[in-house]
């Protein structure tokens, strides 16, 4: 077993929601409710879930854009959740994030070359000339000519911008990159291009990815392990091949039944879930999925199931498996 680079234990992130009155009651939106996972160096963990299930919050909390409500985040054995800004700064070099929207993730007033070299400015690494060189190299690595360094972001297409974002994320030679739906704003042909860049870079620099997405095919292509989230909780986690072959949680099954087959003549059994994802402000009791689950039992309404091992690298949180 190789080195564990990121360890998340019982992470909770609640957002206070007030009703606007001065002395009104504060409710808590449980965006991330007690999740745990680990990522090994050089591997990719795919985090899948519906919109609003808290997957982006996980990413933002790990990188320190949100404060942790409870739980521990360990990066290379060091607890980073409790560090203040100053102590965190040297560690920020090693963890980078690629954002979802390629249009708002680059400063429109700054030239591409500046945006890509800026992380070096912030961390005060190297001389100005070296920084420029590095930016040029990085852009060439993601398939953009250094000639573009003096251009502004609006002169690029979405795919190009996302490649610029990748280049910027690589500027500080990070070890872990959190990818928050980096391909969801791109069309399919560009997605493939960007995904291949991700894969090549991972091999080249031994990068570790936390890949957040709602696109099942994308995650399958990139990931070594996957975790499926529902309403702030991980319902199933394990080896990607194992889970795609043998999904156990009713939610995972329903999710995977929505993947179109490659052969249009094969008709798959779709599992159609009823209802909407419940509001995280007022989640159901017991198992969070019980009100939409086709296999609901009495116990589901009362007890929230824990993740249990069903195989060497496959855990599921469902009362059906004991």
């Amino acid at each position, binding site marked *: 077993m190789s080195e564990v680079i990121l360890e998340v234990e019982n992470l909770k992130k609640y957002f206070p929601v007030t009703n606007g009155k001065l002395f009104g009651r504060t409710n808590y939106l449980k965006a991330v409710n007690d999740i745990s996972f680990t990522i090994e160096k050089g591997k990719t963990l795919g985090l899948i879930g519906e919109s609003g299930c808290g997957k982006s919050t996980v990413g933002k909390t790990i990188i*320190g854009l949100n404060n942790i409500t409870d739980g521990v985040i360990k990066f290379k054995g060091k607890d980073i959740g409790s560090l203040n800004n100053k102590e965190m700064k040297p560690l920020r070099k090693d963890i980078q994030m690629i954002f979802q929207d390629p249009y708002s*993730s680059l400063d429109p*007033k700054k030239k591409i070359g500046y945006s890509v070299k800026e992380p070096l400015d912030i961390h005060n690494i190297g001389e100005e000339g070296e920084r420029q*060189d590095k930016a040029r190299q990085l852009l060439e690595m993601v398939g953009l000519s250094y000639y573009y360094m*003096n251009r502004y972001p609006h002169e690029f297409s979405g795919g190009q911008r996302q490649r610029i974002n990748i280049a910027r994320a690589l500027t500080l030679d990070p070890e872990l990159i959190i990818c928050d739906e980096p391909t969801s704003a791109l069309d399919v042909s560009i997605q493939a291009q960007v995904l291949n860049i991700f894969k090549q870079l991972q091999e080249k620099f031994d990068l570790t990815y936390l890949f957040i997405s709602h696109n099942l095919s994308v995650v399958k292509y990139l990931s070594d392990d996957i975790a499926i989230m529902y309403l702030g909780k991980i319902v199933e986690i394990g080896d990607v091949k194992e889970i795609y072959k043998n999904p156990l949680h009713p939610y995972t099954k329903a999710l995977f039944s929505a993947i179109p087959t490659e052969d249009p003549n094969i008709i798959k059994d779709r599992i159609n879930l009823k209802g909407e994802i419940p509001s995280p402000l007022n989640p159901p009791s017991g198992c969070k999925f019980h009100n939409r689950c086709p296999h609901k039992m009495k116990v589901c309404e009362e007890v929230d199931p824990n993740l249990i091992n069903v195989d060497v690298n496959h855990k599921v949180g469902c009362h059906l498996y004991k």
Partner: protein
Amino acid sequence: MRMEDMKRHDEIDEETLLNLEIMKKEEKANSFIKKLLRNKTAVVGMIIITITIISAIFSPFLSTHDPNKVNTEEACLKPGENGHIFGTDEYGRDLYSRIVYGSRISIIVGVCATTLGAILGIILGIISGYKGGITDTIIMRFVDGMFAFPFILLAIVMMTVFGSGLQNVVLAIGIANIPSYARIVRGQVLIVKKQEYCQALIALGASNKKIIIDHIFPNILSPIIVYGTLNIAGAIISEAALSFLGLGIQPPTPSWGNILKSGKDYLITAPHIATFSGLAILVTVLGFNLFGDGVRDALDPKLKQ
């Protein structure tokens, strides 16, 4: 790809050099000034502003008579009569010279009051928008309070408290302008702060100072500059209004506002007094407005002819 490896890539071939030259040329062609000069209305605005500024600086050389010399025998002469280009006012003072000297007041008040209001407003707006929370609430409620006061009333109160005079006119108009800047800036900061590039900078560990100066400020600058140039026009009008009401610049010092004021009593017998001072205000204000629009277009990198 560590720094040491990078140094080996220093050899630049000929093609690179050529491309670098093209890059430099492109950069030059798209500089702010070039873009501004390509815009015809902005050039017109610039010409008007330049004329006003020149007349403000070189008033003693441009004027034909002493602006304060009273000559009752020549009162209310028509334009062109007796060597008075714009005629004379009710005391026989040369109107052209008075308007030339009046441009000094207008330019000083316009620029200084706007700068004062903008600086204070930007500081308040950035603190309010960037910090958020209780700081934001306190600053914005204070600004709301100032907004609730009608501008002229606020200026009148301040002029009465401070007393009249050039400095106090600048102070009153400047302070009265703070709320609009604070509002505009706060709104812009809130938008920019939510953008993913700002989030990315926070994730990179950039200091608040760097984020505000290098990223937030340039991105909120265009609306401020546009509002600022339009605001110069507004401040010129405000000064004229205050002087017209007798609260601003006190006679005999010529200002376009108090010339207009004295002209209103002679609208029938000597309409040229109010007409020329009014035109001076109108043209100058128009110049700043045209220029403001041009600046906005030139500052926006998305607009490229």
